[in-house]
């Protein structure tokens, strides 16, 4: 009897185990099509350098456990990738995961290219500042992406030259203008900085700091306020400085610009938290001579900044494993090991708040070794980022900016007119496409 009893026990135990595995298999199978992770091989389009190494960590760690393998396909950055995603999506062949800048999300969502992953990544919300997270929801209940990196605006200046010319680090834009004029008087061949029309993101960030909300919705209609009072204030301020010759009007990222920074002909730069990387290549000889301060304010009592750049990880509607893809997106941007690797391999400034002052961010960037509290300060500044409001044709507004403000900067003419053109062209494009537009 003991034998038979044991036999039965074993048998039922086996049955039980089999049953549960079958059940579990059933469970995962039924949900697989929708959300549950399973054996999946996913492609990820990104321009972040070193992302393959970060993805290796996933493929060897959590990914191996869940049998989700990610393959990185390196892409060109920014707008070029948006076009490529939209084209691939038209053919129903977009990759599972894509990197997208925040301002591109409405365009992608409007083309129905991004999946709502709120069910899978809703928990991640707590890791990010509200202003950052809100950019991935577009003000709806859906979540279209997980924030990866951010680019809060700051003020960079040559500490030594500021001292030499007796300039005070400006805390308001009025002081900034004063500093520009004072420098021009003291050294006519030098400029405090330049107004560059070849990167619309900086201007958008400056407008954001001033309180502009370029695209908002009410009901079934978009409201475009690119030439609102706040943006006009920003445009007139910079236009005025260019017109009176207090600052330069040549574009950034040219060999001439590199040289101006490297030789101290331009002694300050309004830029984002990623500036150390750019300065390292643009002005290698001035390493250790720069310092970072918060962005000047419009009102001394305020403490706000805008952002320039920053991107997120999104899952496409073409993906057959949206749940698995979302799981990876959440891991990549909230897991401390992943964020550490992202900082180390890719040099990005994480959107996740707890990562901004840990791991790789305990020490200042090598270029700013003289400023020990660089990243503590940066995290404080990042927290003051004003909310931004993007619309479905940011690309049109941005290209119009480049042409209209490029011409205005060249001719030292009215920036207000250029801003109006930006508004008009953006609205005209939306109307042409058929969007509901309130004016």
């Amino acid at each position, binding site marked *: 009897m003991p034998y038979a009893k044991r036999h039965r026990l074993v048998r039922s135990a086996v049955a039980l185990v089999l049953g549960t595995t079958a059940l579990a298999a059933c469970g995962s199978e039924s949900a697989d099509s929708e959300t549950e992770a399973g054996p999946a091989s996913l492609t990820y389009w990104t321009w972040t350098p070193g992302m393959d190494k970060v993805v290796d960590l996933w493929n060897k760690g959590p990914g191996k456990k869940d049998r989700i393998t990610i393959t990185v396909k390196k892409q060109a950055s920014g707008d070029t990738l948006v076009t490529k995603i939209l084209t691939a999506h038209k053919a129903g062949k977009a990759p599972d995961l894509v990197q997208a800048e925040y301002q591109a999300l409405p365009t992608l969502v*409007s083309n*129905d290219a991004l999946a709502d992953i709120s069910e899978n990544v809703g928990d991640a919300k707590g890791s990010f500042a509200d202003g950052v997270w809100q950019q991935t929801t577009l003000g709806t209940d859906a979540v279209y992406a997980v924030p990866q990196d951010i680019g809060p605006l700051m003020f960079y200046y040559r500490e030594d030259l500021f001292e030499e010319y007796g300039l005070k680090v400006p805390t308001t834009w009025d002081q900034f203008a004063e500093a520009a004029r004072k420098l021009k008087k003291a050294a006519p061949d030098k400029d405090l900085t330049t107004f560059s029309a070849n990167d619309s993101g900086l201007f958008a960030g400056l407008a954001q700091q001033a309180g502009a909300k370029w695209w908002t919705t009410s009901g079934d209609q978009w409201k475009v306020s690119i030439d609102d009072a706040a943006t006009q204030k920003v445009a007139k301020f910079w236009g005025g400085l260019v017109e009176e010759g207090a600052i330069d009007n040549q574009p950034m990222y040219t060999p001439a610009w590199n040289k101006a920074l490297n030789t101290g002909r331009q002694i300050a730069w309004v830029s984002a938290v990623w500036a150390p990387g750019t300065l390292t290549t643009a002005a290698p000889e001035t390493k250790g001579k720069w310092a970072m301060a918060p962005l000047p304010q419009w009102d001394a009592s305020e403490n706000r900044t805008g952002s320039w750049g920053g991107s997120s990880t999104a899952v496409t509607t073409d993906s057959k494993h949206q749940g698995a893809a979302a799981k990876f997106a959440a891991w990549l941007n909230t897991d401390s090991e992943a964020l550490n690797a992202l900082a180390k391999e890719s040099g990005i400034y994480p959107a996740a708040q707890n990562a901004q002052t840990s791991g790789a961010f305990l020490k200042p960037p090598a270029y700013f070794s003289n400023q020990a509290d660089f990243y503590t300060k940066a995290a404080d500044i990042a927290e003051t980022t004003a909310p931004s409001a993007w619309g479905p044709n940011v690309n049109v507004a941005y290209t119009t900016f480049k042409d209209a403000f490029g011409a205005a900067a060249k001719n030292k003419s009215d920036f207000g007119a250029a801003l109006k053109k930006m508004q008009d062209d953006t609205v005209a494009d939306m109307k042409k496409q*058929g969007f509901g537009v309130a004016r």
Partner: protein
Amino acid sequence: MKSTARRQSYGAKRAPYAFLIPATILFALFFALPIGYALWLSFRKVKVSGLGLGSGARKEVWAGLENYTDALTDSELLHGTLRVLGYGCIVVPVMLGLALLFALMLDSEKVRLAPFTRLAIFLPYAIPGVVAALLWGFLYLPDVSPFYFVLDRLGLPQPDLLDGGPLYLALSNIAVWGGTGFNMIVIYTSLRAIPAEVYEAAKLDGATPTQIALRIKIPMVAPSLVLTFFFSVIATLQMFNEPTTLKPLTNSVSTTWSPLMKVYRDAFGEGDLHSAAAQAVIIAVATLLLSFGFLRAANRRQKQEAAR
């Protein structure tokens, strides 16, 4: 026996078509089909409803001639065309003039080091257009250019080459530098094909080298000149590389500086494939009309001359 003969003749009749099949398929797949698709796209447009968020908010609908009327009334496209024509008025005569001059000089009897000189003049053509534009772009920027350094030392005026009128010269210079060699080779090759007896006869008649060049060589290479002119005009209308590469360096080159740049911006900057397709079709038709019109006129003149 009879049936075999019939089959053979039948097979022989079919053979040419069989040989044509690969070419026809390739032509259809990679030439006719894309053009047809571009035409199809140009008659359609995207219609968004409401906020345009979520699925189904965006539909592709028939647009008729709307994209075409928009393109033809677009002042930017017109201005781009005018800019490119202005540039062409500088490039084409200068480049072909230089190419002809170099070819004649190389062909003259007194020339030394001909192979080396020929290679030296041709070499810039081997450099990709984008690289050439980048290279010259650096040389045009006052802060990094050695030319400006020299001008500065000599106390000479330093013009801004990336602005206003000089911009056209700057762009033309890149094209002339890169294209002269190729055109020179084309003209030089046809110069070499002129039979030596013609020169001998001219010399016996007492013609000087200059007279030989003007009265014999140039008329005899006229067909090559027509060909190079034809190529240059098309290249001018399709101008894209140089201004696109110089654009980041200056505020003077807009994203719609040349017609093709506008097509590129609309398609890939603003995501409007449909109006970009319509503009591309218009540019292609204009180029075809212009170049075939020119070829026709040139042929007619040649026939008239032959008849004389």
